[in-house]
């Protein structure tokens, strides 16, 4: 009986330790959330979402161009990165068993380990210098480079999950290999791939370093891909290091908006995953 009591005590102790670990792990997350919400909420008003930044020394104004700019740059990044990443992933899953596949996989792994600021420098050298100006395109290229390796690996995993029997069914119907890959295998994995894309977008939207010397910043609206463009993350950086109290508030507000955007994307990704599982057998 004594051993039973002891076992119970150890059980309690261990459960308690695990719980404590959970609380300690969650503390930083909660404190970040609390800090951003409590500081950022004050800055949010209608102007914040609709107006341009105010000139130095004046209060008021908003970050509407940065919100739009982030969307714009991320859209360019998707236009470049999604076809490349998903295409590479499908290739790796369908044909990537040889040496070429190994090489691509290794490259993707190395690429995903490259610090984002280095990616920014590469985009600077490849796009900004030849074009002789900072641009949304350069920012999009930098973010696309960051998206490709993660997208390629997760697409590969998802495509490998598609049962081989479906591939055989399609081939046995006299469908060529490439159409089978595209219209049966990719389509079956599409739900998961959508989720992977949304998560990649959420991560890309939160990047500052690769944008600092690619898309730079802009005080005004910009809709052309060859001009410097404002983004939320760079705006936060600039406002946060400025000496003005009003800009500090704006930085907190922008941080909150960014957090909400990324959170909404992650949530959407989770919902899509759930409905995908709901559809399956």
């Amino acid at each position, binding site marked *: 009986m004594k051993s039973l009591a002891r076992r119970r005590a150890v059980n309690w102790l261990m459960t308690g330790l695990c719980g404590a670990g959970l609380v300690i792990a969650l503390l930083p997350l909660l404190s970040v959330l609390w800090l951003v919400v409590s500081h950022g909420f004050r800055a949010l008003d209608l102007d914040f979402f609709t107006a341009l930044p105010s000139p130095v020394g004046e209060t008021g104004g908003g970050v509407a161009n940065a919100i739009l700019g982030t969307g714009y740059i991320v859209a360019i990044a998707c236009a470049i990165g999604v076809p490349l990443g998903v295409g590479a992933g499908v290739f790796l899953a369908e044909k990537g068993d040889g040496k070429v596949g190994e090489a691509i996989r290794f490259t993707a792994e190395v690429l995903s380990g490259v610090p984002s600021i280095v990616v920014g420098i590469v985009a600077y050298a490849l796009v900004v210098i030849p074009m002789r100006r900072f641009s949304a395109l350069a920012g999009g290229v930098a973010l696309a480079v960051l998206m490709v390796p993660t997208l390629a690996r997760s697409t590969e995993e998802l495509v490998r999950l598609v049962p081989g029997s479906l591939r*055989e069914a*399609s081939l*046995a*119907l*006299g*469908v060529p290999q490439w*159409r089978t890959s595209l*219209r049966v295998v990719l389509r*079956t994995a599409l739900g998961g791939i959508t989720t992977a894309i949304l998560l990649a977008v959420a991560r890309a939207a939160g990047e500052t370093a690769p944008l600092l010397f690619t898309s730079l910043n802009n005080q005004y609206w910009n809709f052309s891909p060859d001009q410097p463009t404002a983004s939320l993350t760079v705006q936060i950086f600039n406002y946060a290091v400025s000496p003005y109290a009003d800009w500090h508030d704006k930085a907190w507000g922008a941080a909150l908006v960014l957090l909400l955007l990324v959170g909404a994307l992650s949530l959407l990704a989770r919902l899509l995953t759930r409905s995908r599982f709901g559809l399956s057998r």
Partner: protein
Amino acid sequence: MKIDVQDLNAWFKDTHALRGVTLAVPQNTVLAIIGPSGCGKSTFVRCINRMHELVPGSRQTGRVLVDGHDLHGRSVDPVDLRRRVGMVFQRPNPFPTMSIAENVAAGLRLNGIPGDHDDLVEQSLRKAALWEEVKDRLHHGATSLSGGQQQRLCIARSLAIGPEVLLMDEPASALDPIATAKIEELIRELREQLTIVIVTHNMQQAARVSDATAFFYMGELVEHGPTEQIFTNPKESRT
């Protein structure tokens, strides 16, 4: 002879799965292939529509002729061949992202012929004896059907591209007795239009549906002849 197999050998890497098989199937007959697990039955049918060569590390020797043409002849495109030699697999494998109707029309749509192909869908489902059961829910997901219905859907899908030969790899092994009976009845009807090669574990099934039976053992063709003779008066003691 619709299908003529001459001295066919097949390997998976180092495993010699088929050893010098020679047999022929006349037009509009059903050939049943029986034998224990791993004796090369599935490999044999997969050689007839060149699905075998899709397995990494596989190779084969010998000749397979359909309508007198060597399948490995230079002018034969495996994709084109598979449109003439359809295949039904052991487990029902409808496309889960497509509706019932889309599944039947998949062979055409995936090959880039757009449209709903309503007439073809109805015809094919009728041939597969599934029309009455699904006509009111053609646009439901294919996975909402029962296993037996899914398998008949797969048969309809194969029939829709108008094959001359239908290969069936244990089409009823994952099904209950009633669904199996339906599939067997279907095979007897389809013989009017097609040449069928069916792999089965089930001796009674072979006796019920086939004109000729081939018994495989350890990759070798042990005995091949009219079904009645194989079952009542086998020449080989191993049978």
